């Protein structure tokens, strides 16, 4: 792999809620995560609610300050970049949100919102903004004439296209897509995913695709990172991880995914109980409380994310035995 475009090392984020009378509770949303994306590479981040996958996306964009660890973008460490330069760097990293209703300003025409990035960074002379907005709308499969409309005049899938056009306006190199299709109908999901796949190829985008939908990630991404309670459980090429999951959590996740074809259904591994609270995670391996293979040693030290086969890493001390 060539030098990564964006690389997170030892990234942690702790949210502390302060109270006047109550002792503050610290929620460790992301802990010791390493992720790297080469230019043009698509990496899927998979996990259930509370796994810290959305927080990871925002940390990598510098939208949230990290508690620990660093993010390097194009060879430069994010929190060491001077303010003015930061702003120009923002142009190169963008985000697409989950909720197509909350992610567009309801009071401004979509054309103006797409043009924001152009105006802020002075990318296109004011007179040509309209033309560029039209190009962007065409690129995401909308009619340039729709620039004059307000968000409420669009359907959910169309809004998501507008959100993508806005993110692409500044010609970014790195795009975080935070569950971009999970609130859409399946027929529309496929449209948006097709679009994202094409744009990634055509524009050589590095894509961090955050999702809880494993089959979607498998289709779109080169590599996948599986998270549970803020930690990375497993990482590797998407095909391989889904075909032969190494970590017990990945197995459970895959077996729980409903399948259309009864022939492809595997025996369901039901996880007992609920995920533990991120403010009070179990000692040692965070998954051990729900893991069928847990032994005493799992409660001891936090299992390191270690190499497992070719280009894969797994954080389970029993991965080989179970396989």
């Amino acid at each position, binding site marked *: 792999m060539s030098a990564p475009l964006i690389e997170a090392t030892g990234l942690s984020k702790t949210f502390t809620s302060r109270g006047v009378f109550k002792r503050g509770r610290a929620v460790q949303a992301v802990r010791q995560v390493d992720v790297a994306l080469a230019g043009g590479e698509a990496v899927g981040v998979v996990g*259930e*609610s509370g796994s810290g996958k959305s927080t990871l996306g925002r940390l990598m964009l510098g*939208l949230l300050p990290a508690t620990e660890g660093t993010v390097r973008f194009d060879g430069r460490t994010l929190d060491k970049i001077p303010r003015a330069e*930061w702003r*120009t760097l*923002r*142009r190169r*990293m*963008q*985000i697409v*949100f989950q*909720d197509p209703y*909350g*992610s*567009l*300003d*309801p*009071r*401004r025409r979509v054309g103006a919102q797409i043009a*924001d*990035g152009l105006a*802020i*960074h002075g990318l296109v002379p004011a007179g040509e903004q309209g033309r560029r907005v039209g190009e962007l709308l065409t690129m995401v499969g909308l009619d340039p004439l729709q620039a004059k409309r307000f968000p*409420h005049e669009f*359907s959910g899938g169309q809004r998501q296209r507008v*959100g993508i056009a*806005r*993110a692409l*306006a500044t010609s970014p190199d790195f795009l975080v897509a935070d569950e971009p299709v999970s609130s859409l*109908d*399946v*027929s*529309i*999901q*496929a*449209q*948006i995913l*097709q679009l994202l*796949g094409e744009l990634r190829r055509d524009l050589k985008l590095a894509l961090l695709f955050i999702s*809880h*939908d494993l*089959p*979607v990630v*498998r*289709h779109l991404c080169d590599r996948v990172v599986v998270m549970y309670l803020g930690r990375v459980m497993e990482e590797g090429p998407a095909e391989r991880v889904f075909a032969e999951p190494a970590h017990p959590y990945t197995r459970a*996740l895959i*077996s*729980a*995914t*409903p*399948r*259309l*074809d*009864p022939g*492809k259904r595997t025996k*369901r591994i*039901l*996880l007992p*109980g*609920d995920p533990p609270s991120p403010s009070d995670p179990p000692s040692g391996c965070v998954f051990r409380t729900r893991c069928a293979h847990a032994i005493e040693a799992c409660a001891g030290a936090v299992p390191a994310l270690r190499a497992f086969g070719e280009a894969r890493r797994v954080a389970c001390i029993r991965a080989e035995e179970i396989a």
Partner: protein
Amino acid sequence: MKRLWLPGGFVAAILLIALLAPLLDLPNPIRQDIARRLSGPIPGSPLGRDEFGRDVLSRLIWGARTSLGVAFASALIAGAIGTMIGLVGGWFRGIGELLTVRLVDVILCFPPILLALLVVTLLGPGAATLILVLSVLYVPGFARVAYAEVLSARSNDYVEAVRALGAPTGRILLRTVLPNIAGPVLVQFSLAVAAAVVVESGLSFLGLGVVPPAPSWGLMIRGARATMEQAPLMLLWPCAALTLTILAMNLLCDALRDWVDPRTPARRPRLRLVDRLLPGLLPPAEPKPETVLDVSGLTVEIETPLGAIKPVEDVSLSVRAGETVALVGESGSGKSLTATAVMGLLPPAARPAAGAAWFGDRDLLRLSEPELRRLRGGAVAMVFQDPMSSLNPVHRAGDQVAEAIRAHQEVSVADAKARALDLFRRVGIADPERRLNAYPHELSGGMRQRVMIAMALANRPRLLIADEPTTALDVTVQAQILDLLAELKRETGTALIFITHSLAVVAEIADRVTVMYAGQVVEQGPVAQVFGTPLHPYTRALLGAVHESDAAPVGIPGVVPQPHAFPTGCRFAPRCAHAIAACSAAPPPLEEAAEGRLVRCIRWTDLAGAKAA
């Protein structure tokens, strides 16, 4: 826009008259004429003259200048400063919040009249002093409103999106946040102007505001009060002016708020009286005893400003004991509306226009509300998508389940509690004794859905309708809930109608499936057959959009049409790859393709043949 004309014109007229006072040919408002003191309407003075013989109309108009000038000036100043303080405080939080919003809160500690008295004593009365006092008084109101709105606006994704674009803070505040908090600030402005007019009058009335003989509405009321018994009309004019101005201001600000918001408000359709009184004016149908629920030809009609729409049309489906029937389709296909119609829970604007829903020997569409209420939660139960909003947040989970039991059965509180405990155990809630006393917010999403299911099962229903019960849950929790439902169905023989948009979930749980599109059934049959050899192009397209096989998923172009714009022929034709001219000509009938399999497509035989060949 239309709503803006009336109040806007009215306020504009008031302002124009006040502004143009010097140009109007009015008598001098302060010239006294004792001889004509308190005279009624006379030529040259249509509203009469006051206690010093001054022209009332002239004083009213000149007084408007002072009163409105003071009110608008102070509201504008307070609005500008207060909104800015709120913006800064809400955006930066921390020290910024302390220095702005909290500091301004100190003003709220002073009684307003006391503060006014203090300032007037220090600076002397006069219009300028009044503006200063009133501005200071209204700043905290604006600051608080703006602050609260900024807090809620800043958490929106679109604000995050502009941040991600690298916009400077000033641009975010002015371009993105300010327009989105404008509504409440405008309302606050109307309140401030109205209050300022009143307080100005009050202070002038007390002799602390505008200095006589300069005219102001407050001074006029003060003067008229003394001679109330001789000339009651003198009191009426300034009071009427005051009331009308404030009313017009309030109307204008309401209209402005609607105008600033580009989203058109949803208009509530009117409900015809006959629908309320006689909901069952429908053609009768025959009951079918072998099924638990038999819906036939159900049509739901909604009156809208654009005319009557039928978001559900001629839907038939049946479910036997111990069977699971899935209703599947995209949003807008009418699947949830079908279920709510069966439960008698349609929104007030909608009514079942045709068809029947036989539950045993009773037609659910024709039952009276009390009869339905006895059935709901009893023999027919429902589980919704969002367990958080379907559980009452202020009652303990166990009490809610016990209450559901006691609503349908005559048992003691203790017995009901014991039954609730059993149910909690049955739906797989860990540590059930403790969870009985938990509040909904203390439970996880999966646990809350289990409580909902326990509640639905409390009275051993013969029919359970589950509307997207796992959509809001994580996959591992979804797997738990699906297994639970399947197990309960096996044990109790409850008939289950499962509404979902996920085909994979249907494949996992259902025996038969009904595929809906744009309010109609397009295909129906056993799951294995429908998914194995789909007959309708829509079913095939839906299956093709699922990420399952090695082939890349293919989306369906376009969107589900809105009910008022349903195509006249086949409703799927505009999005269908196989559509021919005949498809758009006439609505296709629902044909029986094989035993137990229905399809609504005129080309299904061609397409099936082409595929086989």
